[in-house]
């Protein structure tokens, strides 16, 4: 009988890792969007000024997405991030403009509020088994209404001058160039140092050609970015914030035990329970982080708009979720990257900005956004089926 058992199959299809098609598709899609709008606007779209504004406006969604992606990777959802964001902005406005308290204290309180909302969500979801959709929808309603109650619906304005630093100001070109050079040098150092370490341990490394190509592309992207930004007024400070945040969270997700466990729980929480992972605690922490980043995003938004109000950022949680999903994050959990979510945020903002430049009636924006989201996910699913 044993003779008739087929030979154990080697998964030949998996032997050669397929190129990460999704990532390329994202970039191609972004390029197509830019080219189309550039053509439609006779070039106004692809000017340093417009691109600078586009990136700056994408920051809010990008920060929200940085927080929410961990939640989605776990297999959950957080609908309360936009409400938490406006609450944080409101807290800063009330304490400074309203109460004359120092800005640093207001920011600490606002961030603490964000963490508290996150812990509240996490408590109900992780420890009381309330479905995440319901628990965070409740927070979405409660938190925004709380701010409405406190402010009686009045818009707080202006925000403290110091906040303009993150909302409006730019890094002067020389410092920008210096930072770019440092960033490029650091990236190259880590890349080649890692290769050296791997070689010393006898681990497989990529061919030198590929490594060189990667270095060239890294430097080219940083240089191109700098070149465009420098032609207008330099790098917006807001962009520095999101770049730092995304690098930090990229590190957390890729290189720490905490990050690894987030991916694992999203992949199979039962298996993780048996593997000795404290799922409840991880969930609580992830929601706290989502709340914290929502607060950061809210402070930034109020800085950019120079006002705080309970009516801001209505539905922004959907943009953040869409950014993650367009960037290849699976709503089932376990799959997704920060980089993808960042590109997703830029894609969404690119569409919005493009239509603004074209003076398209605003209802079109949501129609196009909705369809892009649908097609992005459909593309991903139909590709997997094959």
């Amino acid at each position, binding site marked *: *009988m*044993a003779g*008739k*058992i*087929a*030979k*154990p*199959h*080697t*998964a*030949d*299809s*998996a*032997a050669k*890792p397929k190129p990460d098609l999704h990532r390329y598709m994202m970039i191609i899609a972004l390029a197509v969007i830019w080219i189309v709008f550039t053509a439609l606007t006779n070039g106004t779209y692809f000017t340093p000024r417009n691109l600078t504004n586009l990136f700056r406006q994408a920051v809010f969604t990008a920060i929200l997405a940085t927080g929410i992606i961990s939640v989605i990777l776990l297999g959950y959802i957080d609908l309360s991030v936009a409400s938490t964001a406006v609450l944080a902005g409101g807290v800063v406005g009330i304490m400074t403009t309203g109460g004359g308290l120092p800005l640093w204290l207001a920011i600490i309180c606002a961030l603490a509020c964000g963490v508290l909302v996150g812990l509240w969500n996490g408590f109900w979801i992780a420890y009381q088994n309330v479905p995440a959709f319901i628990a965070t929808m409740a927070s979405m309603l409660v938190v925004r209404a709380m701010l409405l109650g406190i402010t009686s619906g009045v818009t707080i304005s202006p925000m403290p001058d110091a906040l303009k630093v993150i909302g409006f100001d730019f890094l002067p070109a020389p410092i920008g160039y210096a930072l770019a050079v440092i960033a490029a040098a650091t990236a190259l150092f880590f890349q080649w140092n890692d290769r050296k*370490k*791997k070689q010393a*341990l006898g*681990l497989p490394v990529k061919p030198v050609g590929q490594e060189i190509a990667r270095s060239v592309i890294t430097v080219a992207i940083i240089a191109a970015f700098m070149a465009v930004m420098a032609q207008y007024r330099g790098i917006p400070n807001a962009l520095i914030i999101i770049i730092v945040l995304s690098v930090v969270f990229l*590190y957390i997700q890729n*290189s*720490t*035990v905490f990050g*690894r*466990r987030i*991916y*694992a729980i*999203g*992949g*199979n929480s*039962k*298996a*993780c*329970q*048996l*593997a*000795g*992972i*404290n799922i409840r605690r991880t969930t609580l922490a992830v929601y706290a982080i989502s709340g914290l980043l929502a607060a950061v995003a809210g402070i930034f938004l109020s800085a950019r708009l120079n006002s705080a109000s309970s009516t801001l950022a209505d539905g922004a949680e959907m943009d953040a979720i869409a950014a993650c999903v367009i960037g290849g994050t*699976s709503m089932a*959990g*376990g*799959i997704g990257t920060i980089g993808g979510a960042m590109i997703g945020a830029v894609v969404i903002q690119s569409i919005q900005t493009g239509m603004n430049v074209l003076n398209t009636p605003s209802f079109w924006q949501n129609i196009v956004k909705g369809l892009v989201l649908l097609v992005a996910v459909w593309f991903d699913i139909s590709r997997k089926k094959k």
Partner: protein
Amino acid sequence: MAAILEARGIIKLFPGVRALDDIRFTLERQQIHALCGENGAGKSTLIKVLCGVYPHTEYEGDLLIDGETVQFKTIADAEKKGIAVIHQELSLFNQLSVTENLFVGHEIQRNGILDKNAMTKETFKWIDWFNLDGVTPSSLVGDLGVGKQQLIEIARAVRQPGVRILILDEPTASLTENETELLLGILQKLRKEGTSIIYVSHKLDEVMRLCDRITVLRDGATVGSVSTNAITQDQLVHMMVGREIEDMYPPKDTAPTAEVLLEIRDYNVFEYVTGKQLVKNAGLAVRRGEIMGMYGLVGAGRTEFISTVYGSDQYKGSGKVLWKGKPLRINTPVEALNAGIAYCTEDRKEAGIIPTMDVGENTTIEFITGFVKGLAIDKNAEVMRASEQVKELSVKTPSLATKIVNLSGGNQQKVLLARNLLGDIELLILDEPTRGIDVGAKQEIYSIMRRLVKKGITILMISSELPEVLGMSDRVCVMHRGQIMGELDNRNAALTQELLMEKAAGIERGGA
């Protein structure tokens, strides 16, 4: 007249396994035909072919009904030909009533409006026919006992118009003796009224009593088909087991000690929601350096018992656990792992592999904290340790970066073993370590187990496969309906399959 159902030369391939290999099977009219074989022999796969779960494009061979070739694309096609299947897992809706369950998918309606009175009336008829005492059409199915649920499941199948062939997969696995009697009586009644029945069961005495004919499968092939009158139970067992056990299992050349490594006393396990008691005052002692087998029928409570001791949160457990003679409190698996106890699940797909991750990540996830340097995971150390472990357990994978779902079942199982062996483990609990993997991979896992014992690891192996329990265990404990029926020595080959089976079925042999 042609047979009502005939399968000719059925071949069904899974990646890496020939699940069915040239199966021949003939069901006559008004016949109860048993399908016997060990776990993994191909019974379930054959049933899935017969009832259209696998469309005709996915297997080779012919299916004939009344002598005419049929090609099922879906389950609905098989239903149209009068084939109804009752699977091992009940598929009832607990929150719906008996009537609603009986008619789900085949509701009596007039212009889209449900005719509830007609359905209730017919439900009364079936309740009567099946002797379902105390059941009313409006009883919630979830409130009924498992036995009654099983009968309702059967009623649902036979009440469908035109059902001529009934397939039952282990219908008595979770039934009491009385319920079993009732069921067997009903099946005989159905046979008399013209239904042909395929009966899959491990319980050979039932098979011998009930069935007209028996077909035995082994390793995906038909061993033979005999009339029940022409065979004894012993001969049947021999047909089922067949292969020489000595070739499968490595020699028991390790020396168990008398030192008790893990002792469990008075352990009870309850379901959270219903409060139903699954394990009653169970206790056992595992000695250092042995492979202890844990045998029992499906539903005996073995996994519930051991996984709860390990700290799984599926059930509520209470009792005493002694580790190396000292009390050990295990609330979550973390405490068990820290003590040196690891548990490898029976449910590879649902609670084992992490499908989104690659082989390397799946290997290291349990003991990942061991690779932390500063804030981060030292990925180089991780990769080196993982590839060492993967090589040690001879996992066949193109690379560590291969997604685990692309491996065969046997290799996935080896990755799970690797995962649990990455830390300092003294006791390895293996729950159905060879479920659903082919013979070659089984053999590899057996030799890995013996190798581990030689390295000083103690193994507690839960298994439903008798030959495996006998072939691998130094001692065996048997569980029956949530209770431990005893610990038996297997070193001097005194144990037989029959003895274990009797213990597992709760039969006390007086004097004989």
